[in-house]
Structures are given as structure tokens and as C-alpha cells.
């Protein structure tokens, strides 16, 4: 028996590729139409065969249900098929390149999953006696050590559960430090235009007023404008580095020195740390607090696949105000420092961010990623992420308008605008046509400082062949948009659904299923 190695596909010469009659089912071969689960099942049938209960008299009193519950009854195979069919209409990082920058939909190594499922990590309870979870505490302690070392900071709060939660943690520490100094009157947080959108929201939520600092034409913070605004009412700045324009903020050290001299603190949004891990230590740049997205830089699942985790590293100045709990190594092993045993060595802590200790499953995955790469491997992660983004940028800068192409190399994200598309064509048309090409679209219309922004983040794990295919697809779509190809306005044409009416969906959203017959 021989194996077909030539790529020959045995399609019959009689195969009809022209117009054919629509199918009875609405399915298109393996592209399956799927109804809502309420339309498949009904409340009259059930997939579970219980014997009639011998219930004489309920103890629910007047709380007994009066109306039918209305849940569809399906058998196990029907339920499994429903969700499996739906999942086949989804696009995922396990299917192909996912250029959705600013979120780093990157490969989640399977080794992470194996380690996270070890019983000693997956089956522990946060209220278990500490001497029964020494291994889990050691994982938290080791990961904390790596994070502090990689960032060049003094301490880390492991408990925040996502990036924005970490931002709040950092800003609350700054607030506590100012109040301790008797400078609670400092109420202004400066946020550059090149920062993440969550930054001003965080500062406002923590009770500060937010003032914008403009960006320069090359996409970085206007350092002169920032320095000019510093004064006795400024609590600090929130700066994203690398920033949302995909650029490294080269003046950060200079900015930090000026902010410190004016009595403020520097919060760095570390969401983009994956571009500089192993290359730059934010502590060396004068940062006082920074969150790290474990679900970005350290490859834990993200976006429907798992919870976020946003540990916050602190400078020496802010360390006394960090939240509880934390793990401490003693002669006998590891202990949890909480309110009842914090004593005087953590008396200034601003409190707690969460009830327990943080995302244990994410800690295990992140430490697995770190240990399987090692320090040199993490450095290569950053280098490859930046190399791949620059390859995309330079391959397409002559096709699409690249507003910051002359600002030097980009970091892990390449940014294009819709400036040179034909009249009437915008980023949305390019993105929808990319769906037809078999790719998830890139981030669109963000950052706001770029007209019709297309933000592409290829991540470090994509091969050159995969990048070339994506670049080819985007170039082809962009050329059609520049030539004014009208078929782009109705793309996607090959997806399970054509162009959706997003305006109608936003104006008249249907959020609850209702039985049409009722």
C-alpha cells in the first residue's frame, strides 16, 4: 500500500463546482446549521429517566414553583452534538493564527494544562490547613520570586484576578502611600493618550480625577507636556509601556524621575510586558507599581478559555502598602501572611483585593511556562514576538498606511490605518474579508489615536510560513479595498453568516429567547 504524498486530491472529474441546489437541511456538507438549544429540545421531553418521586408534601411552602421552568430536555448525545456543532463554527488559537493584538491570543502549551491538573494543585481548597498545601504555597512563592526578579521590583501582590483588577490594586497602594504621607489632597492622575483605555477608568474608580497627556506625532508620550503638568496636586501617572501604539516609551526613566521629584508615583500598565520580558526590568525605569497579565505574558488561557490573573509588582516605596495575603518562606516551610498574623510587619497594607489567595490554576500554568522556558527562553519569547510583529509591519507598510512605521521598530504589535483605502472603504471591510480568508480579524479601531486602526499582534509562536500566509491574505484584501472592490462591502461571503447588521443588533438587541408560539 502506498501513501499519497503528492498532495493529489482525488476529486472526480465529473465533480460539479458550479451552482447547485440548496440542501434540504440547510447544511453545507460539514458546515452544519445549528438551531438554538430551545428550538431543538422542549420541556415535554427529558434526557434523564428518573422514577416518579414519592413526594408527599413539599417543605417549600409558598416558594414552590408555579410556572413551568421551560428548560429544554435533551439526551446526552443530543446535548454533546449541539455544543460540538456550535464549537465548529468558532475560530480559535488552536485552529490558526489569531492576530487579535492587545490581548495576546497566544499558544497555551499543553504542559501547562498537565501540571495544573495535578491533584495537589487542582483539588485544594483555600481554607485547607496550611501544612496540607505546602506544595501549592511553594508554587505561589516561586512564581512570585520569578515575577519580582524579571521586573526588578521589590515585592508582588499575587491575588489580583485580571489586568484591570491589578491596575486598581496598584492605584489603591499609591492612594494609601499618599494618605500615609498626609498628602491625600493629591487627587490628579495623569494618563497619556497612548495608554490603555482601562487606565483612566481605574483612576476614576479609585476616586482620582483624570487628566489626559497628549501623544506626539510619532506615537509616544509628550514628555514635555507631562512634565509641565506635574505639581502638588498630582498623585501620579499611569503609563502603558510598551504603549498602545505598539512603541516602547523611551523616556520612561526620565518621566519617572520627574514624577518622583514632584512627589508623585509611577504606575506602569504592564499588559504588554510580553514584548520586553527578559530584556527590560521596569524597576530600572523607576516604576512604582505594575501589573502583569499572566494570561498574556505567561501563556495562561484567555478569552473564554480561562480566568485572568494580574499580579502586581511594587517598588520599595509602595511595598509596605501592598494588599494581603502573601506567601512567606520560614524555617519550617511556607506560611500565608493574612490579617491575623501580619502583625506589625505589614501594618500599612491597604487591605485585600480578593477573599482568598488568587488564581491557583493560573499560577501553576504560569510557573510551568516560566520553568519550561528558563530565563533565556523567556527573553527569546519577547524577541520573537517583536521580530514577528516587525516582519508583519515591514511586509505590509507599502500596502497599508502604517502611521508609526518611521518611529523605529514596533514592539509586539504592528499598527496600520485605513487612510489609503478607496473612498467609502474602512477597516471593517478589511476585517470582514479576512474572515473569508480563514483568519480571525485583528483588533479594529483601537488605539483611538489612529484613524481606522488595525492592530496586528502575531505573537511569538507563529512560524514564518504562517506569517507569510497571513500577510498574503491581508495584502490581497487591502489591495481589493484600495481598488474599491464592491464585494468587500458585503463580506464575509463564505462564513456561516454573511455581514451582520451590527447597528440593528445594537439598537434593538434581542437578549432573551422567547417561544415564538407563545
Amino acid at each position, binding site marked *: 500500500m502506498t501513501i499519497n504524498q503528492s498532495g493529489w486530491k482525488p476529486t472526480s472529474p465529473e465533480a460539479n463546482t458550479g451552482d447547485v441546489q440548496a440542501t434540504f437541511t440547510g447544511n453545507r456538507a460539514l458546515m452544519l446549521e445549528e438551531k438554538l438549544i430551545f428550538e431543538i429540545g422542549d420541556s415535554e421531553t427529558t434526557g434523564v429517566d428518573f422514577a416518579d418521586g414519592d413526594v408527599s408534601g413539599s417543605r417549600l411552602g409558598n416558594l414552590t414553583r408555579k410556572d413551568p421552568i421551560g428548560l429544554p430536555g435533551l439526551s446526552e448525545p443530543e446535548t454533546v452534538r449541539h455544543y460540538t456543532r456550535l464549537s465548529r463554527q468558532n475560530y480559535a488559537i488552536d485552529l490558526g493564527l489569531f492576530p487579535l493584538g492587545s490581548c495576546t491570543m497566544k499558544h497555551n502549551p499543553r504542559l501547562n494544562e498537565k501540571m495544573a491538573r495535578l491533584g495537589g494543585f487542582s483539588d485544594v481548597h483555600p481554607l485547607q490547613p496550611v501544612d496540607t498545601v505546602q506544595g501549592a504555597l511553594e508554587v505561589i512563592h516561586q512564581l512570585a520570586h520569578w515575577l519580582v526578579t524579571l521586573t526588578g521590583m521589590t515585592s508582588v501582590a499575587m491575588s489580583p484576578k485580571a489586568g484591570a483588577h491589578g491596575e486598581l490594586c496598584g492605584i489603591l497602594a499609591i492612594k494609601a502611600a499618599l494618605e500615609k504621607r498626609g498628602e491625600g489632597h493629591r487627587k490628579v492622575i495623569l494618563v497619556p493618550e497612548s495608554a490603555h483605555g482601562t487606565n483612566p477608568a481605574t483612576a476614576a474608580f479609585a476616586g482620582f480625577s483624570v487628566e489626559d497627556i497628549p501623544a506626539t506625532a510619532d506615537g509616544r508620550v509628550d514628555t514635555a507636556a507631562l512634565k509641565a503638568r506635574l505639581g502638588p496636586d498630582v498623585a501620579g501617572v499611569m503609563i502603558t509601556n510598551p504603549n498602545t501604539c505598539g512603541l516602547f516609551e523611551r523616556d520612561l526613566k526620565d518621566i519617572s524621575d520627574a514624577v518622583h521629584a514632584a512627589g508623585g508615583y509611577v504606575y506602569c500598565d504592564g499588559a504588554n510586558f510580553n514584548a520586553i520580558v527578559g530584556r527590560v526590568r521596569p524597576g530600572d525605569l523607576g516604576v512604582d507599581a505594575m501589573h502583569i497579565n499572566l494570561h498574556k505574558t505567561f501563556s495562561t488561557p484567555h478569552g473564554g478559555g480561562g480566568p485572568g490573573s494580574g499580579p502586581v509588582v511594587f517598588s520599595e516605596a509602595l511595598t509596605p502598602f501592598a494588599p494581603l495575603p502573601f506567601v512567606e518562606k520560614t524555617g519550617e516551610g511556607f506560611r500565608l501572611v493574612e490579617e491575623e498574623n501580619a502583625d506589625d510587619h505589614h501594618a500599612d497594607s491597604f487591605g485585600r483585593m480578593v477573599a482568598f489567595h488568587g488564581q491557583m490554576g493560573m499560577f501553576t500554568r504560569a510557573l510551568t511556562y516560566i520553568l519550561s522556558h528558563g530565563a533565556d527562553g523567556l527573553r527569546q519569547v519577547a524577541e520573537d514576538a517583536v521580530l514577528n510583529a516587525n516582519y508583519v509591519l515591514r511586509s505590509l507598510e507599502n500596502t497599508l498606511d502604517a502611521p508609526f512605521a518611521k518611529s523605529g521598530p514596533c514592539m509586539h504589535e504592528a499598527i496600520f490605518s485605513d487612510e489609503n483605502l478607496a473612498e467609502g472603504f474602512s477597516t471593517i471591510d478589511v476585517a470582514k474579508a479576512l474572515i473569508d480568508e480563514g483568519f480571525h480579524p485583528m483588533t479594529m*479601531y483601537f488605539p*483611538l489615536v489612529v484613524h481606522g486602526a488595525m492592530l496586528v499582534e502575531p505573537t511569538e509562536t507563529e512560524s514564518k510560513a504562517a506569517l507569510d500566509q497571513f500577510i498574503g491574505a491581508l495584502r490581497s484584501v487591502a489591495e481589493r479595498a484600495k481598488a474599491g472592490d464592491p464585494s468587500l462591502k458585503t463580506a464575509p461571503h463564505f462564513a456561516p453568516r454573511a455581514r451582520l447588521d*451590527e447597528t440593528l443588533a445594537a439598537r434593538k438587541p434581542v437578549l432573551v429567547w422567547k417561544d415564538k408560539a407563545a
Partner: protein
Amino acid sequence: MSRYFTEDHEWIDVDGDVATVGISDYAQGALGDIVFVDVPEEGRALSKGDEAAVVESVKAASDVYAPVSGTVVEGNAQLSDEPGLVNTDPEGEGWFFKITLSDASELDGLMDETAYAAFVAKL
């Protein structure tokens, strides 16, 4: 009745001591399809520059600031059902709110139609 414009792309029609406020045709064009508008309630006191209304399009959510100080007389209730009026008739049926004018001198720094057209042309 005279019409004024702000640099934030709002228009103001002044009729006696009541001003009607909306967003300009340029603003609705830049925002794209409007899907939601939140107008201030009757009786709300606003100072010039306060956040008065919220307008949300398929692209972005933006605040609309009070161009003058005063008390809200009426919000355009029709916009909650038909936010698209802001796109189809921004400077007419798509008005946002009416406000009493507590300080007529606040109108002094605003642009008239010609000046606003020149301002937009430079953007």
C-alpha cells in the same frame, strides 16, 4: 433665533432664555451609526462643561458636554426609541435637550454657522 456651535461639535439654538442643544452633522458623520442616546432629565442643573448626555455609536461612546450653564427643561424622549434620528436629522429632530440659559454671556465665545464651517474644514 440664532444658532451657535462649539468646538466639541454641539449646536445651540437660542430662543429667548431657552437653548436647544444637539450635535452637529459633522459629529454624527464622525461617530457613525448612533445606537443609543442618554439625555439629561428635566430639572437637572448643569454648569458649562458638565457631562450632560451620552451618545453611543457602533464605533464609540462619547460624552456630550453642556455648552452653557442652566437647568434642563426637557430631554428629547424620542431618542431612546429612535437614536437613528441623530444620524438622519442631527440639527433638527435629533436634538438632545433644552436648557434655560442662566448666563447669556457664555454664548459670546461660541462660533456662528460660518465660523463653524471654517473650523470643520480645517479638521
